């Protein structure tokens, strides 16, 4: 590919844009999470820093920046340092093919969805390395749980995405949204897949009721037990960005991405993304964590067969029609 001034400018704009989206999203979502949690528990959440406590996350971030990073003496230092980076970088990259409107997209890829799924898997690698590298039994337990969990949700997740790909006939995220233009959103064609996908992304983003890797009440803090200061907050940044990404993919696949009346495209896209984010928060502050074996049984015995049947059914109907 020729490196032109345009492509360099585009790259710079992409990096700036994604960094902005990731940063602002994290600040806002952490605030929203604390507000939602507060109000669901008869509290108010943060109120002091900034209007309605909006800048609380910024203050917390500054505090974390100024804290010492403690390296356990028995830790495998290179892995210990790499783990949060491996958690964070893939989600950064995975935002590249996500379209925010017909024209607002960092880079159009015809295999955009595949790229997002593949990069999403690296998150678990980061968690595994974090648990392995710091030589702590709780961290290792959390990491091994995350790895056990990944198979239970990833296969049903893919089987929920496949019917949408069948309907749209493309792997490009942009084309999938375009395919929903003028017809009903895919959530109405694929209610079962949509429902299963919601459950699967709750597992994928390590959110309660499936937050085994972290499991505060069982494993201290799971895989990031030994992390402090900014390295700890990198994990948080990765988690909240991952939630953002999963919600973006969910709204593209099932709720028609930027499509919607009156309001401009990006606004609709963000509205849908934050609808999913709120839904995940709602789950988290309502449902207690299930047992590990219950989750695995649920993933293998219910999610997998139902999503497989749903996929086969869709394929059969499409072959007949």
């Amino acid at each position: 590919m020729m490196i032109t001034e345009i492509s360099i400018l585009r790259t710079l704009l992409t990096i700036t844009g994604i960094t902005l989206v990731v940063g602002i999203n994290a600040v806002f979502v952490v605030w929203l999470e604390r507000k939602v949690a507060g109000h669901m528990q008869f509290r108010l959440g943060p109120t002091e820093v900034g209007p309605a406590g909006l800048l609380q996350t910024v203050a917390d971030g500054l505090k974390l920046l100024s804290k010492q990073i403690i390296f356990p003496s028995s830790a495998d230092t290179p892995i210990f340092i790499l783990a949060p980076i491996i958690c964070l970088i893939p989600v950064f990259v995975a935002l590249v093919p996500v379209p925010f409107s017909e024209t607002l997209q960092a880079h159009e890829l015809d295999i955009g969805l595949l790229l997002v799924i593949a990069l999403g898997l690296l998150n678990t690698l980061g968690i595994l390395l974090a648990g392995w590298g710091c030589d702590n039994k709780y961290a290792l337990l959390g990491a091994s749980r995350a790895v056990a969990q990944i198979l239970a949700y990833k296969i049903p997740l893919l089987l929920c995405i496949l019917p949408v790909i069948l309907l749209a006939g493309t792997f490009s995220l942009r084309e999938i949204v375009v395919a929903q233009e003028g017809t009903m959103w895919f959530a109405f064609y694929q209610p079962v897949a949509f429902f299963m996908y919601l459950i699967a992304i709750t597992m994928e983003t390590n959110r309660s009721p499936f937050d085994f890797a972290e499991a505060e009440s069982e494993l201290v803090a799971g895989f990031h037990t030994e992390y402090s200061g900014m390295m700890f907050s990198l994990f948080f940044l990765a988690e909240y960005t991952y939630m953002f990404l999963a919600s973006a993919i969910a709204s593209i696949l099932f709720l028609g991405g930027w499509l919607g009346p009156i309001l401009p495209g990006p606004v609709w896209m963000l509205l849908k993304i934050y609808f999913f984010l709120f839904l995940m928060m709602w789950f988290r502050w309502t449902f207690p964590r299930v047992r590990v074996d219950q989750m695995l049984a649920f993933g293998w015995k219910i999610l997998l067969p139902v999503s497989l049947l749903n996929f086969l059914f869709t394929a059969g109907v499409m072959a007949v029609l």
Partner: protein
Amino acid sequence: MNWSYAKNIISGLASLVQGMQVTMTTMLTPGPTVEWPRETAPLPLRFRGHIKLVTDEAGGAKCIACGACVRACPSVCIEVRGDKPEGAKKKAPTLFQLDFTKCSLCGLCVESCPVAALTYSRDYALAGADRRVYSSMDLLAGVASPFPEQCHEL
């Protein structure tokens, strides 16, 4: 797959929805939080703060320094000294000190006062850097004194 299995799944789903309803209604209901000190909760009518002296129309204390409250106090936390101002028929307090660190807010002093010169204050925001602020509260502060300045003990 039998019927009870499916029923189990359906009732489980219903319970999940029910749980989400509970959290949503809680979220939308305004909570009881009062953001003190920017706003204060209304005090109950019969709130018992530390005692204070009742003043008459002229702003002086109604207290006649009889010492009934001192005798009634089970915690020995009131100290009263009084004197007759020139030309007056009744005594007036020259010192009225409360050791609020010992007070149990029983209210016996208020009940025993023959001239109803004691009452409960509505002062609850009590915090200080020095315990002496509360171990010797001067209840005569802010009360007009019938004595010339130099006579006031303390």
